[in-house]
């Protein structure tokens, strides 16, 4: 455990050294936008739309017939759930599975097929060349995905109301506009940045230290997903305490 932390920190030091060529870094980041962002868009969209709808319905069922709580609370509570926890935390957990396994298996395969050795022999800092563009791309694209997720989840809640008639569009929209605080959005995106960094760097680390063959590449990608998920959960608690207290 301590050994992993030490090695991870040493690797990060290499990752954040100066890149060989800015232009190449830029083109690599563009490539990662595709493989990290565009490829994850569909799953994020589907999950968000449905989870938003379910969240709103659950709240509606629980509050129906309650004389004290006004119906627009459904909109308000849906927004809070989605912006504070569902989009930044749960969607990032899903992305840890999707993006994390991808990064770890890509880099792990390069390790076991000696492609990383080939880079080193050319005199290229392989950690920097391979991992840095993935981290930078994640830090840019994951927050975009999360923003899309927030929008779609809230939209999903609204659609659920329209289709079931459990609450009115007017009440829902009034609810999602109530008690709005900018710092909640700021907090959500601070978390997202942190999680994006965890997903890309931890997965990069587990891919990079792979030894052996195809079997170990599979294990590396599992380790990447498990460890980044656990770290996300732990940091979620820490950040919530730090940022909202």
């Amino acid at each position: 455990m301590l050994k992993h932390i030490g090695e991870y920190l040493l690797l990060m030091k290499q990752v954040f050294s100066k890149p060989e060529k800015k232009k190449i870094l830029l083109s690599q980041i563009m490539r990662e936008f595709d493989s990290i962002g565009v490829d994850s868009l569909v799953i994020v969209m589907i999950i968000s739309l449905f989870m938003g709808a379910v969240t709103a319905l659950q709240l509606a069922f629980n509050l129906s017939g309650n004389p004290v709580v006004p119906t627009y609370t459904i909109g308000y509570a849906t927004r809070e759930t989605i912006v504070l926890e569902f989009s930044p935390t749960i969607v990032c957990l899903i992305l840890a599975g999707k993006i994390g396994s991808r990064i770890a298996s890509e880099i792990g395969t390069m390790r076991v097929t000696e492609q990383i050795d080939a880079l080193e022999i050319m005199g290229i800092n392989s950690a920097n060349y391979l991992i840095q563009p993935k981290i930078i791309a994640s830090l840019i694209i994951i927050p975009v995905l999360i923003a899309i997720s927030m929008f779609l989840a809230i939209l999903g809640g609204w659609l659920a109301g329209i289709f079931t008639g459990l609450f009115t569009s007017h009440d829902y929209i009034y609810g999602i506009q109530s008690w709005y605080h900018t710092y909640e959005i700021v907090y959500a995106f601070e978390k997202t940045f942190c999680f994006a960094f965890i997903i890309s760097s931890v997965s990069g680390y587990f891919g990079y230290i792979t030894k052996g063959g195809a079997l170990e590449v599979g294990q590396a990608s599992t380790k990447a997903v498990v460890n980044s998920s656990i770290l996300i959960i732990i940091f979620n608690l820490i950040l919530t305490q730090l940022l909202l207290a």
Partner: protein
Amino acid sequence: MIEVRNISKSFKNTEILKNISIKFEKGKNNLIIGQSGSGKTVLMKSIVGLHNVDKGEIFFDGQPFLIMNDKQKKKIRREIGMLFQGSALFDYMTVEENVMFPITMFTNQSLEEKLERVNFCLSRVDLENANKLYPSELSGGMKKRVAIARAISMNPKYLFCDEPNSGLDPRTASIIDDLIAELTEEFQTTTIINTHDMNSVLKIGDNIAFIYKGELCWQGNKTEILNTDNEKLNSFVFATELTKRLK
């Protein structure tokens, strides 16, 4: 010239290389031969610094490699071309991009200049119409040849080839041997080749080092290798039908 002095290397308490000292000459084909598992790949990777040795010294044209700082090591590495046992082509790049990669990384040439160099290197390995293919679309022999083209794209001073013709048919194997020998002669590179192919040994073996279970067991050239009374070497050399008939 590359010289290694007294290098030893172990993995988890098993000693793989035992106190090996060899000189590899410039402009010559320096062969390292030995059975599968004898430590050839480990030796080659130790020389270029992909494995950290436990003890010993390594000199590239007199410069002590192991005590260099990262910057100096990088400088040496840019003069190294290496062909890996499994080719190690970048699989998300086309043939052309693979060969162009080191040039893009370390020079500021225009695309035309780079393409000219790439096509020259590819023509040297007889691969003229494969520019746009991906490694997954190539045969094993084609991959080896692309890897050679990539290794020579920067005009290396030191050329390392780990089993350049294993898994190839005799004719292609022979063509690759010729190619490596030609490049060595033409550009006066210090070439180190790992092989267990007796045909290559007899054809291009200017200097031969025989490794047996991690120890340097015999050194000589392609004529001497047929007339030695070293038992371990003889059992290696005369293991195949063809070489038995030479006797």
